[in-house]
């Protein structure tokens, strides 16, 4: 059983005990523990269940590469699933729960999946999709759904806050081990700005655990001194608990800083996402140890040899009482020696190499440890805990030589440099056969804006495993970065380091070498996703030759650890199965983030009301206080209707429509886009932008205009006003003001840059208020100050002057078919004018109305709405708007496209009106019209769809508009609209103008 030792533990403070719970059990640890070390200290080896077979899973690693020890942390609004115990610092009161088990961790019903392993081979999901639908629905999906999934989704809104931080630096160094510290010192001395980040709370990396000597003193002492020197440099910033999450184009990098995960009592944001632009990035990210592939390597108690050493030296925790070591290299002997020197028993060191003659094996033998060379583990015995291993020859197929009792296994398959950040932005790798590792190829780095490589790998991350080589490489990397930026550096002024010499590794991808199918079925590659050697071999056998395909077929490396442990072993098995070399098979793509980061950090402050700023009209607050039922319109909120107390939304809309048609309504139209277009060439420019002729518009007059893109499709509409000879005011849709302004600027800047035109988006400078209805003129007369008679202000004209003492521009335009005025006043006076209008309108029964009444009234008149009648594939001709397309102009945007054969096809969908057979039935929006027999595939033959559909209180029946193939030739036809549950609605094709076809109501 794992346990806390009386001695050791350089990172823990035994004077500061901490309480925490795991699955409700009260446990204790020390300040400085990780959750993983504290769990092991409490003998909690079993920490989770695997994804597919729900196999018992124990802690394997001591860092972010951990595949198994995923827990749910916290509770309620602070709950977070899938947190790694190995990267979670212990604090007093921490609450953790294991996940992916039912009903309990110790007794898991899902583990029967294990018995079904035969039925869950590689490509299981793909293969079962081939079964009949019923089998999938009733058999597979319920089983898979019940078993699958890691963690549970938080049920409450996250209580914590997060922030972004923008940072620019000359050199970013990722990794605070001895390589990162050395690089920072060399770079720091150049005077350039340096940011050095370390993902853990502690500096120095593995050097202390591995007994490295630097400049003649212990690594820990050197690290302290180096930190002191770096802290004295004003141009160097040090940040621990900050991970280099990703490297992107042109030296962009993301840093993920965890500010209070280790102590939730710290106020302020929990995580900070650093958005860094660096001129050079040095990756000193170290290496990750590889597991060995032997049967039963997933049983709790089997750990990485380096992790065993970490737990022992850093936290004073032993993985077991009898820890067997299995290796293909010298490095793992460090673990055996450390365990032995801590007074623990190492029953054997199993070394796959034919002989082990290096200094470390010699030392182990001298200490009396049993070393078995040329040997392998045949199989590990145990259920929720290792009980013994069988010894066999590495060269054979598993014939048992001996059975060795043990309760832990420390394995080492060699080390893989952490090349993720090097690779994120395109850095290439090369295979180093001698060290059996992929390492950065310095000839093919990711390149920056000036074409030079901007990432430099350093130390172990660059493939150097011995401490002295690490220091030399780190100093050279820093000097190269400094010199590339035009400053001076002296790499000779570096520290020298000494570590135990190591003899070459023997690549071992299968243990024993000729393991048969029975062993391969029990040999795990990906512990979290339950991918075994047999799965990868099956994938290869079934024709999956590409490593990217094999990854997806088997799910190898697709778990939340992204295959940090499994990738190299997996592709080695694939290479072997395909009889290829490892570099021929290559690696899968490394994608950011290096290690999962919180959604909160990605969102930063952009949540709640700050997610997207709201645009408010000058009347917004009044509307809000007077029953506004809000709806989003682009970035604005507009009132759908204004409810009176006791009224439903539908009742309010009906009342607003009838009152506007009978008396007079008041509309806040301030959100309409307003763009000033000014200059000697303004008319010429608008002639190109609009389908109509705008240059001929007389000063003082208004004209409804259409805008198309170069495909000929309608993109916006609105009323254009000629304010003076060289000045136009273009109204756009509420959602279109920014887009259309940008559209104008694009053409002016990139195509007609010699035309003399300025534009200004003045949308928010004006409040615009509609006074609409038969009594509208009476209200304006009551407000006083301007002659608004039929003669003085005819339809489609405007006047400037004073209304009720407020400077105003009054347009006589109508979107309802009623007598209608829109009054633009300075935004700051919008509310004042609104109040005066309300007061003056009282005698005439005036009531404010919202967007739904506006929509219904425009539909009653057959007026189109951009986004309802248009969908990006509709030309004005489809909407019977041919009258608004000038035939006199040589050119306008969209003209050429509207001459293409498909655009002049008489069978295009065209706008029609619809009257349902039952006048009280309202067609659903977007209902499809169908015609004739069904098609060969059993689908209906669709000839069009409803674009707008309402109940018209004015007319007392439903109305709709639709785009129907050849619609203008179908007047009087009855069309079928199948809707839900087998119901078919029938409707007659009619003219889309339902009310006042002659326009008499507005022409008064």
């Amino acid at each position, binding site marked *: 059983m794992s346990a806390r030792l009386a001695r050791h533990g350089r990172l823990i403070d035994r004077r500061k005990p901490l309480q925490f719970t795991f699955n409700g059990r009260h446990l204790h640890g020390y300040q400085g523990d990780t959750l993983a070390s504290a769990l092991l200290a409490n003998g909690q080896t079993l920490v989770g269940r695997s994804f597919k077979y729900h196999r018992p899973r124990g802690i394997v690693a001591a860092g972010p590469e951990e595949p198994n020890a995923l827990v749910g942390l916290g509770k309620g609004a602070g709950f977070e699933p899938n947190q790694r115990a190995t990267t979670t610092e212990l604090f007093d009161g921490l609450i953790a729960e294991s996940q992916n088990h039912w009903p309990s961790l110790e007794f898991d019903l899902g583990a029967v999946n294990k018995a079904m392993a035969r039925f869950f081979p590689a490509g299981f999901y793909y293969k079962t999709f081939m079964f009949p639908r019923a089998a999938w629905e009733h058999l597979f999906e319920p089983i898979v759904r019940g078993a699958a999934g890691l963690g549970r989704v938080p049920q409450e809104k996250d209580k914590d806050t997060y922030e972004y931080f923008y940072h620019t630096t000359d050199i970013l160094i990722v990794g605070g081990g001895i390589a990162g510290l050395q690089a920072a010192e060399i770079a720091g001395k150049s005077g350039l700005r340096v940011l050095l980040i370390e993902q853990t709370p502690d500096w120095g990396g593995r050097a202390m655990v591995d007994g490295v000597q630097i400049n003649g003193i212990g690594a820990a002492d050197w690290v302290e001194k180096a930190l002191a020197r770096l802290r004295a440099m004003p141009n160097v910033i040090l940040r621990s608990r900050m991970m280099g999450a990703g490297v992107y184009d042109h030296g962009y990098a993301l840093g993920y800083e965890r500010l209070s995960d280790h102590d939730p009592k710290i106020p302020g944001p929990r995580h900070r996402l650093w958005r860094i632009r660096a001129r050079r990035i040095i990756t000193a990210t170290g290496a990750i140890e590889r597991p060995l592939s032997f049967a039963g390597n997933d049983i709790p108690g089997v750990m990485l040899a380096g992790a065993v050493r970490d737990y022992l030296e850093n936290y004073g925790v032993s993985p077991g009482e009898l820890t067997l070591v299995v290796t293909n290299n010298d490095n793992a002997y460090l673990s055996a020696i450390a365990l032995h020197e801590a007074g623990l028993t190492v029953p054997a060191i199993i070394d796959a190499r034919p002989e082990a003659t290096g200094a470390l094996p010699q030392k182990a033998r001298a200490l009396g440890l049993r070393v078995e060379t040329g040997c392998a583990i045949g199989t590990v015995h145990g259920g929720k805990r290792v009980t013994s291993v069988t010894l066999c020859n590495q060269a054979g197929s598993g014939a048992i030589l001996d059975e060795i009792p043990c309760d832990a296994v420390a394995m080492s398959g060699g080390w893989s440099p952490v090349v993720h950040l090097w690779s994120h932005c395109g850095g290439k790798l090369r295979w180093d056969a001698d060290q059996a590792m992929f390492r950065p190829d310095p000839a093919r780095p990711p390149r*920056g804006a*000036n074409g030079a490589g901007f990432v430099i790998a350093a130390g172990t991350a660059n493939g150097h495993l011995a401490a002295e080589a690490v220091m030399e490489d780190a100093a050279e990397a820093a000097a190269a970065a400094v010199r590339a930026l035009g400053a001076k550096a002296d790499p000779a002024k570096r520290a020298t380091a000494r570590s135990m010499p190591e003899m070459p590794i023997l690549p071992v991808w299968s243990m024993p070498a000729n393991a048969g199918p029975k062993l391969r079925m029990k040999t795990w590659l990906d512990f979290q996703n339950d991918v075994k050697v047999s799965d990868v071999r099956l994938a290869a056998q079934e024709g999956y030759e590409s490593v990217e395909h094999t990854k997806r077929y088997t799910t190898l490396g697709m778990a939340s650890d992204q295959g940090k442990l499994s990738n190299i072993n997996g592709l080695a098995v694939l290479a072997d199965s395909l009889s290829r070399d490892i570099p021929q098979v290559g690696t899968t793509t490394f994608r950011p983030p290096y290690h999962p980061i919180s959604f909160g950090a990605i969102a930063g402050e952009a949540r709640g009301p700050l997610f997207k700023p709201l645009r408010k009209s000058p009347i917004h607050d009044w509307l809000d206080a007077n029953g506004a039922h809000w709806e989003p319109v682009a970035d604005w909120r507009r009132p759908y209707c204004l409810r009176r107390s006791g009224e439903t939304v539908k009742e309010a809309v009906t009342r607003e429509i009838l009152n506007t048609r009978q008396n007079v309504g008041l509309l806040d139209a301030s959100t309409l886009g307003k763009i000033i277009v000014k200059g000697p060439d303004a008319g010429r420019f608008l002639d190109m932008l609009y389908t109509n002729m705008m240059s001929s518009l007389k000063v003082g007059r208004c004209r409804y205009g259409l805008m198309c893109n*170069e495909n000929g499709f309608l993109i916006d509409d609105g009323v254009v006003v000629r304010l003076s000879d060289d000045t136009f005011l273009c109204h756009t849709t509420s959602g279109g003001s920014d887009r259309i302004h940008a559209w104008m*600027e694009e053409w002016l800047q*990139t195509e007609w840059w010699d035309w003399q035109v300025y534009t200004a988006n003045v949308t928010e400078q004006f409040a615009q208020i509609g006074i609409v209805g038969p009594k509208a003129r009476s209200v304006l007369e009551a407000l006083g100050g301007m002659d608004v008679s039929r003669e003085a202000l005819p339809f489609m004209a405007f006047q400037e002057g004073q209304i009720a003492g407020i400077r105003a521009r009054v347009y006589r335009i109508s979107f309802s078919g009623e007598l209608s005025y829109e009054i633009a006043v300075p935004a700051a006076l919008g509310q004042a004018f609104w109040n005066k209008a309300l007061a003056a309108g009282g005698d005439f029964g005036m009531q404010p109305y919202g967007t739904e009444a506006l929509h219904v009234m425009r539909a009653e008149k057959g007026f189109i709405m951009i986004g309802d009648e248009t969908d990006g594939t509709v030309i004005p001709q489809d909407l019977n708007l041919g009258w608004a397309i000038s035939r006199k102009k*040589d050119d306008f945007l969209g003209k*050429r*496209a509207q001459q293409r054969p498909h655009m002049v096809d008489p069978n295009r969908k065209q706008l029609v009106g619809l009257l349902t057979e039952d006048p009280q039935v309202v067609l659903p929006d977007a209902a499809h019209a169908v015609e004739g027999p069904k098609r060969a595939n059993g689908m209906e033959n669709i000839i069009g769809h409803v674009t707008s559909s309402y109940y018209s209180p004015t007319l007392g029946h439903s109305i709709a508009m639709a785009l129907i193939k050849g619609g203008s030739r179908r007047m009087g036809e009855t069309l079928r609209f199948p809707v839900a549950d087998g119901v078919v609605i029938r409707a007659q094709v009619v003219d889309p103008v339902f009310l006042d076809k002659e326009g008499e109501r507005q022409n008064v």
Partner: protein
Amino acid sequence: MLSLHCPYCGVDVDETDLTPGGEAHLVRSGSGSDDADFEAYLFMRKNPRGVHFERWRHSFGCGKWFHAARATDTLEVFGTYSAQTKEPPQDVQERIRARRPDWKGFGKGDRI
């Protein structure tokens, strides 16, 4: 997250402050153009692995459109320049030639 130099503001701008505008130096085919020219103008876009000329707008800055000469394979930027020109400036073309000796030249060998 590309970084491009806005020739109007004189600053290096993060990609998130920019709006991409696709291929630069298109020649507009308007009313009266033949089908082939119009099709090329409307739909045919280069997608080279290598030297490319692009339109960008400094939307969250000065609002100006500018052009960038860029390598799509290595993300190297050869230069940014005014959008109000029919071809890349000579100094940009020379820089491309120096960095990419195999480049065939602006408008040469890269039409579809």
